[in-house]
């Protein structure tokens, strides 16, 4: 263990299902971070930890070492002509928006081409999970906009990787779940938008087939698309929801969002406030959110549209001490409608319910990572309070449906998938293995058979 390691009980994943003791180091300079990597003892592998916004165990290493990256938080340069930004890997997307998305007089500005549903994630985490946003069908994933990155390996080398240089290692590192080395810094290509504000449209739809119709209609002209689904609706109402589409409003500016949440959940309640009752009430209310209108059109800042959950810090605590699971899968376009219907029916039948069910189509923009999650098809994401065996049974069922349909699960959101499902979903796994750094492994990599399960100091301790 590096001598500065300290013991922590507070490094958990966002779903809070796994609580464990970790040793933690927090290097505050890139060279110090690179050195930590060379000091990892054999058989006691470590893993990088960014903001801990992954729901499952990709950033966890119970009993072992975490390399916290948040203090690698310096910008290096921003070329405001070309939109090229270079920063250290612990810089958050919130910080990038604040520093670079300053509206010009005509409302235009630079913007991160891809953002996930929260801006409180690090650049390193966004690359390692190759995250996607509501515009994935047009702009692909985060990794599509990484010009290059510097990767520290445990043998002491620091390699600059890009689509041209060390291209295979680059492909392994984008979406590489922190297993190929420690990303020290990255250069990102920002995009210029004519207006930072968004023109949004919310449209209520009555059944699953309507989602597909609306989605087809929105393919041209709407850059951001996703739908909220009322997961408790069954029968001929199965898959009803609200379709959200948005595009930049030329000439209308929007200020960068705050660096932290405006309000926070102060303490964890002793039991989950997300339960059958509140889920039912929420879904019923959300379904009626548009009032009598079928369609609501507005011009808004992007903050609320991109990051609705960021308004309330620590909202994951509302799920109580047992935490919650996320599930996200993508199934290929052929048979997507049938598979989605099957998934939604299984959820409605189990009656466990979820507040935040999101359905979205991925397009044909190819993600650069060997293990990147996005692929053409339909992706479904949702969360369930952890009610023990019943929840696990439902998740296992959903996993089986997705994999049988030729789909895959998203490691950033997963805490349960089997090694077999992982291997079936990610056919380029064998090419990936060759690029793994022997000093790195996570609870996830051991669970899905990417790393030796006997590594680490024993999770069963």
């Amino acid at each position, binding site marked *: 263990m590096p001598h500065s390691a300290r013991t922590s009980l*507070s490094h958990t994943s966002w779903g809070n299902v796994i609580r464990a003791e970790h040793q933690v180091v*927090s290097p505050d*300079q890139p060279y110090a971070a690179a050195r930590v990597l060379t000091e990892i003892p054999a058989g006691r592998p470590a893993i990088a930890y960014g903001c801990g916004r992954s729901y499952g165990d990709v950033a966890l290493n119970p009993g072992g070492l975490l390399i916290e990256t948040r203090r690698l938080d*310096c*910008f290096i340069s921003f070329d405001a002509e070309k939109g090229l*930004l270079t920063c250290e890997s612990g810089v958050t997307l919130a910080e990038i928006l*604040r520093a670079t998305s*300053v509206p010009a007089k005509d409302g235009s500005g630079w913007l991160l081409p891809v953002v996930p549903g929260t801006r409180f994630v690090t650049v390193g985490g966004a690359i390692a999970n190759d995250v996607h946003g509501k515009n994935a069908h047009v702009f692909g994933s985060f990794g599509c906009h990484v010009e290059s990155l510097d990767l520290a390996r445990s043998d002491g080398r620091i390699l600059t990787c890009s689509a041209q240089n060390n291209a295979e290692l680059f492909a392994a590192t984008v979406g590489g779940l922190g297993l190929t080395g420690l990303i020290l810094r990255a250069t990102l290509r920002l995009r210029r938008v004519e207006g930072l504000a968004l023109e949004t449209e919310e449209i209520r739809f009555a059944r699953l087939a309507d989602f597909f119709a609306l989605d087809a209609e929105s393919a041209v002209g709407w850059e951001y698309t996703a739908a909220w689904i009322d997961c408790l609706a069954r029968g001929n109402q199965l898959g009803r929801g609200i379709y959200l589409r948005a595009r930049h409003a030329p000439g209308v500016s929007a200020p960068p969002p705050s660096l*932290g949440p405006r309000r926070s959940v102060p303490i964890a309640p002793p039991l989950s406030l997300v339960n059958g009752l509140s889920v039912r009430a929420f879904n019923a209310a959300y379904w009626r959110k548009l009032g009598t209108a079928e369609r609501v059109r507005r011009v808004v800042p992007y903050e609320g549209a991109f990051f609705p959950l960021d308004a309330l810090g620590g909202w994951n605590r509302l799920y109580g001490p047992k935490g919650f699971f996320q599930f996200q899968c993508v199934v290929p376009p052929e048979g997507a409608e049938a598979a989605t219907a099957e998934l939604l029916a299984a959820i409605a039948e189990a009656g466990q319910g979820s507040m935040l069910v999101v359905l979205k189509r991925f397009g044909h923009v190819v993600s650069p990572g060997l293990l990147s999650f996005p692929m053409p098809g339909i992706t479904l994401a949702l969360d369930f309070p952890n009610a023990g065996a019943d929840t696990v049974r439902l998740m296992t069922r959903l996993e089986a449906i997705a994999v049988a349909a030729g789909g895959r699960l998203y490691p950033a959101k997963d805490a349960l998938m089997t090694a077999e499902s992982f291997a079936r979903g990610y056919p380029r796994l064998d090419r990936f293995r060759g690029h793994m750094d022997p000093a790195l492994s996570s609870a996830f990599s051991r669970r899905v058979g990417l790393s030796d399960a006997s590594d680490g100091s024993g999770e069963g301790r």
Partner: protein
Amino acid sequence: MSTQGRRVAIFGATSEIAVAFGRLCAEAHDRLVLVGRDPEALERLAADLKVRGADAVAILPADFNHIDGLSEMAQESWAPFAGLDLALVAYGTLPDQKAATGNPAVAAAALHINFVSPALLCDLLAARFEAAKAGTLAVITSVAGDRGRQSNYVYGAAKGGLQLYLEGLRHRLWAAGVRVVDIRPGFVATRMTAHLPQGGPLWATPERVAADMDKAIRRGSAVLYTPWFWRIILLIVRALPRPLFHRSKL
């Protein structure tokens, strides 16, 4: 105030509270002089602050232990932007009381870097602000300076001494319209305190402390406790009758 933002010098610029404060200045498009020991760390921070919006950034590597160099340091901090609107003195170290007890060399080094050096630097900066008849001198002291306690009275005495020194300077500079802001943070989760169990309601982030400082400096407040509840805690700690205080482990 000019629309170009303030001219700000930060002494001890790479300490975490100072970094957080520097980033607030950068967002306000201030012009910054970063003074610190490690030139590479200063370069790294300078690049960061430029991307975050600073109008211009100059760096000044310096050794705060070196008293004879303080005068030149004050002068050089004045040079890049032909004067300063704000100087923040933010350096210091947290000595181990046990190591300092009965060891004059350790204790003297702690008193030197936490009191002698910053007090003398403040005097030099004060003279420049006084001549300019404008500006703000802000200094990070500590709540530890409010009452001597067995667990860290070397640090406490240095910081308490600095507080008195600042009170005197404030008195003197009042007529010239120069503000002196004494910033007293409580527990802040930084490298300096990494050996302590950080966490719990009394611990604040450097960002939180920096945001409070920013407000107090803009207002020109005399003394800031940050976060605010330390004002109440210290009111109580100072008021504790001696017999009771002596039995505590504080």
